[in-house]
């Protein structure tokens, strides 16, 4: 009996040990340390981290307009990014589940931007906005292309949104396609025999049945846009005048550019709380709308 117990322990160690240990060292310990640092004035280098209580948090909410601006930017960006990627992704999926000749090639094209990382995409689009758009503007005379895209606050915001939608709509399309293929054809045919129009079928049958996919896609899009970093860094670097600085980029700059690790940690904790709250609320809200077939 004793040897059986010890072999059980060994099995537990071998099977669960490696991932539990990595998880502990890489996620749990840093998370707890971060919580501690958020109450200190640690600068990242010195051995000593002085306890400052809630001073960092108070500072953030009362004397750090840049952080609050980055929050506001991130919220605006998330709302637009989530709506536009989901709407475009769903439309693409809806059309590309019909029997079009070039269907498979089109799916590939719409998906391909997603496999390229945000950092490289940001640099590619920097060129498009700076050089490409202006030459198209010169050739066609369209004022849309003549705007100083990355130069003004309003247009730089839309620049980030455009690239984000271009990058991610195809991914959501894939999820919506697989969900649309699961809608039973018999239900749709029955509705058509009863005289339902295409729009009615879409609203009354298709959309309720793809609600689980909507949950997933909203979750993914919110998570990507709220944690926007790579694309932000390479496309605008937060400019002009920090107007397009995301929360993630603000935290990064606070810690690694001006070496206020304590302050950065406090921001990171606030960021975590907000992300966790949004995730929980959102999953709860959409789960309620799901329908079982």
């Amino acid at each position: 009996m004793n040897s059986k117990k010890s072999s059980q322990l060994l099995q537990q160690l071998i099977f669960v040990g490696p991932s539990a240990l990595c998880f502990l060292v890489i996620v749990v310990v840093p998370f707890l340390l971060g919580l501690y640092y958020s109450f200190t004035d640690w600068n990242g280098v010195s051995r000593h981290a002085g306890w400052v209580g809630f001073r960092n948090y108070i500072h953030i909410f009362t004397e750090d307009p840049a952080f609050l601006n980055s929050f506001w930017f991130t919220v605006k960006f998330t709302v637009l990014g989530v709506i536009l990627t989901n709407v475009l992704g769903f439309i693409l999926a809806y059309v590309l589940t019909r029997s079009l000749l070039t269907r498979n090639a089109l799916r590939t094209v719409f998906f391909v931007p997603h496999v390229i990382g945000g950092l490289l995409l940001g640099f590619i689009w920097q060129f498009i906005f700076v050089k490409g758009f202006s030459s198209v503007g010169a050739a066609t005379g369209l004022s849309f292309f003549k705007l100083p895209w990355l130069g003004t606050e309003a247009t730089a915001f839309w620049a980030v949104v455009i690239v984000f939608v271009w990058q991610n709509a195809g991914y959501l399309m894939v999820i919506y396609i697989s969900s649309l293929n699961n809608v039973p054809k018999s239900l749709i045919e029955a509705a058509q025999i009863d005289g339902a129009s295409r729009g009615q079928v879409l609203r009354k049958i298709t959309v309720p049945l793809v609600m689980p996919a909507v949950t997933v896609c909203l979750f993914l899009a919110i998570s990507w846009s709220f944690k926007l970093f790579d694309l932000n860094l390479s496309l605008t670097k937060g400019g002009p005048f920090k107007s397009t600085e995301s929360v993630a980029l603000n935290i990064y700059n606070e810690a690694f550019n001006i070496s206020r690790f304590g302050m950065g940690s406090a921001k990171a904790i606030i960021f975590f709380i907000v992300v966790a709250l949004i995730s929980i609320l959102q999953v709860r809200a959409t789960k309620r709308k799901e329908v079982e077939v």
Partner: protein
Amino acid sequence: MMHTSTNTGTNRGTSPRAGARTSRGYRAKRLILELLMILLALVFLVPFYFLLVNSVKSFGDILTNSAGWPHAFLWNNYAQAWKITAFPKVFGNSLLIAVISNVLLALISSMAAYRMVRRDTVFNRLLFAGFVAAMVIPFQSIMIPLVKVVSTLGLMDTRTGLIICYLGFGAPLSVFLFHGFVKSVPREIEEAGRVDGCSTYGIFFRIVLPLMQPIIVTVIILNALWIWNDYLMPSLILQSPSRQTIPIATYAFFGQFTKQWDLALPALVLGITPIVIFFLAMQKYIIEGIAQGSVKG
């Protein structure tokens, strides 16, 4: 909800509805829809056009004629970008890190998930709850102390350190996906193996692991795209140029050659080529893997 047939490669050109309604009006409508979609696809591809044609132009040509065809093809741009970014070295680093992290991550998370499903102890239940809860933690929330932890362990500026970070930060989602799958594997198959004298390890590696193949593909694809394209984590942990991955090298290159588009654009083309080729070659699995992963997630 469990069995999603993704239906990506095979076409359903002869669906009953299309067959029933081949009136001329319907066909014309579909043709217009098809043309509209092709037009939209071309718009999606325009950035790649700009990238490719300008990557072989001279600097002056890029400035005066960025939308048009090159006056002369300067393939030498690529040779220079190849040399300055030390592309083979950087590509090798990216590949090494992505492959090792992926294999280890899939292995340790599938083992952990299997054990957690089959041994429903309080510890395992708590650990699983911890993994699920950690899925919402953004990387930016732990990156500052993580640097400190990695340097305390003496793993700063090592590829081993980076790989361990990927194992730890990737474990929650991977374990979660495997966990969902193992629950659907019937215990009876394992009982049969045990009767035949297999040890627990034998049962896992010879019976359960092969059954997990679809979810392994999903996990590897999701993690591969993430790790290959990740910039932030390697930028915090790797410092030596000889250890750089493609995203870090690209970022460093842009810092050095700002606005030198005749070098920057070919460097970008080099940077995106491996992952685009990988995607086109593995497209069927990638698309299916994503659809599967999202249904389970």
